């Protein structure tokens, strides 16, 4: 049987479907910020950016560009009506204080106990970059990770224990990959959705820790976005 892994945009689309009306959400750099394009119609999702914005709107068009209005990824952004701006200290007070419903972050590795490694991949000659990841992973009510299921050379990213330096221990609730949607539970990884055409054995072979399957495990699919 053949299968077609989700594209980055499709992973973002899938993750965005789980964002509910009224949620306050922080989107990390990379794939997570793409989710902003796929929030279901009719849901008011408030995007927080850790440099001090609640109510981030679409990336600015050429005409809208303002060098003094950026998100935490240095993109030039617009604001939605009702948006507010505040200091970095106040922004992290919001994050650390538990006022963010969901953070969607990129990940290098997730362990079956929910440990997350997403900030330091030991790149030779490159300095460290933590940014807001540790505060978000520790402070948000729910931490959801978006990543390719395996590394470029095929190694597993879902592991018994992380190899890279941790961002935060036991923090991850859900993982969206190009192959599956997986929850982190007290019993370890539980697959909620698996890609059409991908067998459970194949998915297990691409994972570094035991996978269980939800009783109502569904099919992972996304439109061509």
């Amino acid at each position, binding site marked *: 049987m053949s299968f077609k892994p989700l594209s980055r945009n499709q992973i973002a689309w899938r993750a965005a479907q789980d964002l509910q009306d009224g949620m306050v959400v922080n989107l990390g750099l990379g794939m997570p910020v793409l989710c902003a394009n796929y929030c279901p119609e009719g849901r008011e999702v408030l995007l927080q950016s850790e*440099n*001090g914005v609640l109510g981030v709107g679409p990336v600015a068009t050429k005409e809208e560009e*303002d060098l*003094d209005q950026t998100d935490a990824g240095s993109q030039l952004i617009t604001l939605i009506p009702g948006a507010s701006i505040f200091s*970095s*200290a106040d922004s992290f007070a919001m994050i650390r204080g538990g006022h963010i419903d969901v953070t969607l972050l990129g990940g290098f590795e997730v362990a079956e106990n929910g440990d997350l490694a997403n900030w330091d991949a030991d790149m030779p000659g490159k*300095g460290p970059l933590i940014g*807001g990841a*540790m505060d978000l992973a*520790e402070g948000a009510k729910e931490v959801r990770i978006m990543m390719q299921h395996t590394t470029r050379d095929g190694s597993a990213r879902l592991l018994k224990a992380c190899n890279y330096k941790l961002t935060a221990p036991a923090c991850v609730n859900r993982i969206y990959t190009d192959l599956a949607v997986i929850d982190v539970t007290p019993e370890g990884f539980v697959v909620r959705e698996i890609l059409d055409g991908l067998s459970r054995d194949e998915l297990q072979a691409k994972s570094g820790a035991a996978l269980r399957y939800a009783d109502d495990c569904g099919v992972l699919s996304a439109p061509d976005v």
Partner: protein
Amino acid sequence: MIDKRVANLDEALAGLGDGMTIMFGGFGGAGLAIHLIKALAALPAKDLTVVSNSVRFLEDFGPALFEDKRIKHAVASAARSRGSVSGISEIQLADGTLTLDIAPQGSFAERIRAGGAGIPAFYTPTSVGTPVADGKEHREFNGRMCVLETALTSDFTLMRADKADRYGNLYFRGTQGNFGRDMAAASKCTVVEVREIVEGLLPQADIHVPGVFVKRIIQLPDVRGA
């Protein structure tokens, strides 16, 4: 009469010398004091400690600070240069000429706020269970393990705002504010470059930083995109 306007960059940085700690406002280019960073790079001051969310911007606008090895220590949440090859700050980090206190951004911001607020230290759960917490004092509150973080203060803060008045009151556009207010409060001498020093005084609703935290203001154009 209170008048914090200075005439030129020399006056703006007067008194900045060897061994000092300098904070830099700015995030994603907004609030970054490009003129003041360039003027600092042109001074002889050495053995500096810099406190900047990202080291990269200092390298972009003040490369001489690194080339001449005038920065000995950095406090930052990001110390990664542009591109995939090592930047000069990364080479210095690797060879030990530059030391680094790498901080989660929230702890970084809160340590600066604490510095300006007379809070010498606080506990936070952020970084517990990671190598960043190694060597830090741990303590549990309400069942949650935390680490002790200490306040950051500085001799100078260099930052940018949109408008100022002679009292030193500041108005930020968009997301220029970021670390600015707290760095201003945490510093003995806060110098702010602004697009416009207004006639008269800013209206109350426009004041994002009370002038009490600001020592010097200088009007300098926005040179980005130019």
